[in-house]
């Protein structure tokens, strides 16, 4: 009893001393972040950083789309409301090119930037300078219910084709019992259904644009991809799929309503979490499917990153925070508190070499494999004038992707067929891209 007291007393004294020592440079930083589980955990752990440094944090936590709008609007108009931004690897190179982000060239020695996964590091760097630090990263893979597969007598290989996925989905579907063979994203948005559909199209050998920047929705590959997607979802998918995004599908899968779910690798730690997931101990993983004969597994690469706008007045404190939140120490801290399975995945090689993590996270190997298979320079097997992954790395993509996503979502809702949706997508994409002046030179 006494010893605990003494311990607490000295800890408080230490914190106080630390506080006093840094009062002179105490800063208040405003952090904008998305309301995903990992970020909320960061928010919960951050008082520790505040105590160590004497700085304070104002949090702005918003739903993903709202966050993106607020942050983009602020940085583009130089509003200067935030010191740390949470942005995707889509934005990082585009914003870095506008000098909107502070270059992170003098990171502390012990940050160990060489430990970052090569594909992630490449995505966040311009001319070998990092402009954001990765908080967690993801590719995409197949998650499925082993119990249902067994019951239905189907097997999903480690590297399935779309045809195999369809067979399995069909066998697992039992609509009377409220079990849907496959759950995929249908909610419109460039980061929602279009992330999935672009990856799926990649794995069918399709591309968004040919080398003259002509939209390619009239190609056989897109046609095949969209038709198969619609058939899969209308026959074996849940009702209301046109409104389901990542979160909705996650919740369906956790409730045991999905046989197969193909989505971001980061979902693996949620569906295997016995506290939230009713199916935690009967989930297995496989690589993102491909069309027979096409050597492409979707090329999905996403990371949520912390970056500092060049307009920030609290550069030093902000840098200190983002290195703290993306460090190996932070990972360890999460592991100590919540177990290794909850460690933010997909950013550091050391995590995947950690025996404890491998032990706790059955999805570790498949995640790493998927992430390493990504090549952001050539997202499709065909030649492309753009780089990217499950997105096209041009500023106009948000607008175009969301508009196309609306068309495909409408098709899923049964308001148009694949043919019509593709035609609409083709003409609106071409309209936008011509206006932006691509391919005219």
């Amino acid at each position: 009893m006494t010893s605990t007291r003494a311990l607490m007393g000295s800890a408080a004294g230490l914190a106080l001393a630390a506080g006093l020592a840094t009062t002179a440079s105490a800063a208040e930083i405003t952090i904008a972040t998305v309301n995903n589980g990992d970020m909320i955990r960061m928010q919960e752990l951050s008082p520790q950083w505040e105590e160590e440094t004497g700085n304070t944090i104002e949090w702005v936590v918003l739903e993903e789309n709202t966050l993106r709008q607020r942050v983009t609007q602020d940085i583009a108009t130089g509003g200067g409301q935030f010191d740390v931004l949470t942005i995707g690897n889509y934005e990082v190179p585009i914003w870095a090119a506008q000098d909107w982000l502070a270059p992170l060239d003098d990171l502390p020695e012990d940050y160990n930037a060489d430990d970052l996964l090569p594909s992630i590091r490449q995505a966040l760097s311009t001319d070998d300078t990092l402009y954001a630090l990765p908080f967690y990263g993801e590719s995409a893979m197949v998650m499925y219910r082993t119990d249902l597969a067994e019951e239905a007598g189907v097997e999903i290989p480690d590297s399935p084709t779309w045809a195999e996925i369809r067979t399995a989905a069909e066998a697992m579907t039992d609509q009377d019992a409220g079990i849907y063979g496959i759950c995929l994203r249908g909610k419109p948005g460039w980061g929602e259904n279009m992330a999935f559909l672009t990856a799926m199209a990649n794995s069918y050998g399709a591309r968004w644009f040919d080398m003259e920047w002509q939209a390619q929705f009239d190609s056989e590959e897109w046609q095949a991809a969209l038709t198969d997607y619609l058939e899969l979802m209308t026959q074996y998918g849940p009702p209301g799929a046109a409104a389901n995004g990542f979160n909705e599908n996650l919740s369906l899968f956790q409730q045991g309503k999905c046989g197969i779910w193909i989505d971001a690798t980061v979902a693996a730690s949620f569906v295997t979490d016995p506290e939230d997931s009713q199916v935690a101990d009967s989930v297995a993983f496989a690589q993102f499917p491909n069309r027979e004969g096409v050597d492409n597994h979707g090329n999905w690469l996403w990371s949520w990153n912390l970056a500092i706008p060049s307009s920030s007045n609290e550069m030093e404190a902000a840098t200190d925070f983002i290195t703290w939140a993306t460090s190996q120490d932070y990972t360890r801290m999460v592991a100590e508190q919540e177990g290794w399975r909850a460690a933010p995945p997909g950013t550091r090689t050391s995590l995947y070499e950690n025996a404890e993590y491998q032990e706790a996270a059955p999805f570790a190997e498949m995640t790493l494999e998927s992430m390493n298979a990504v090549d952001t320079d050539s997202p499709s097997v065909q030649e492309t004038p753009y780089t990217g992954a499950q997105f096209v790395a041009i500023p106009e993509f948000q607008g175009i992707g969301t508009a196309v996503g609306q068309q495909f979502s409408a098709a899923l809702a049964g308001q148009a067929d694949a043919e019509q949706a593709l035609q609409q997508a083709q003409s609106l994409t071409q309209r936008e891209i011509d206006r932006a002046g691509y391919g005219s030179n």
Partner: protein
Amino acid sequence: MATQHSRAAARFMIAPSVVLLLAWMLIPLGMTIWFSLLRYNLLMPGENPFVGFENYSYFLSDPAFQTAVINTLLLVGGVLLITVCGGIGLAVLLDQPMWGTGIVRIMVISPFFVMPTVSALVWKNMFMNPVNGLFAYVADVLGLPAYDFLTAAPLASIIGIVSWQWLPFATLILLTAMQSLDSEQLEAAEMDGASSWSRFYYIKLPHLARAITVVILIQTIFLLSIFAEIYVTTAGGPGNASINLTYLVFQESLQRYDVGTASAGGVVAIILANIVAIFLMRMIGKNLDA
């Protein structure tokens, strides 16, 4: 009747409101008109060249534009129809003698206090969701397949949500008007053997005319720029099925960050809103002068 002196004083008293609103209208509007003539995209900083009416032709030729105009009118019209009819019905009902009027009235007006974002979130997730929503459960109990409201009938669903929010407002105004009705007149009619329907149709309804116009005027102002409900529930989809003008402008300005086109869209929306306004003002003017 009014003296020279009081007229001057009156002008002096009105001035602050007028000046403030004029500034509030003209400065942003002026900037919006100016931006609408530029090629101005937030994501591509640099000089913003003058492009004349290019943004307008781009906005007006957007395939979603026509749908947006029609949807805007349907949304306003649909909600008005439901809230006015429902409001009359409720006002008649609440005007009857009953037990627990106070509590009934509190329950009926409560939706008006709920934030649009909250009501949209609650309806979307807890009621209309085809898997976990309460409606899906009810359908299941009745042996019907779950109806996917926001996908199958997005605009109608949004009209429903918005009507729920505005029904209390209409009810309150209509009820107050109803209660101001001279009860002797009604009693006389009753003595004469008029049916309750004809008492409603020939006495109550005409009496409510002014209140109905007021409800239409005030609600239209708010309904023309419905945004949160669409943003939260359908994001304008599927396809463009539930997009309205406000939302279309939003897509340009905050999803494409194309300030030029968004400004052009804003100007178009203002013009269209004013056309609606002129109609309304005519109607109101006639009804309120009396």
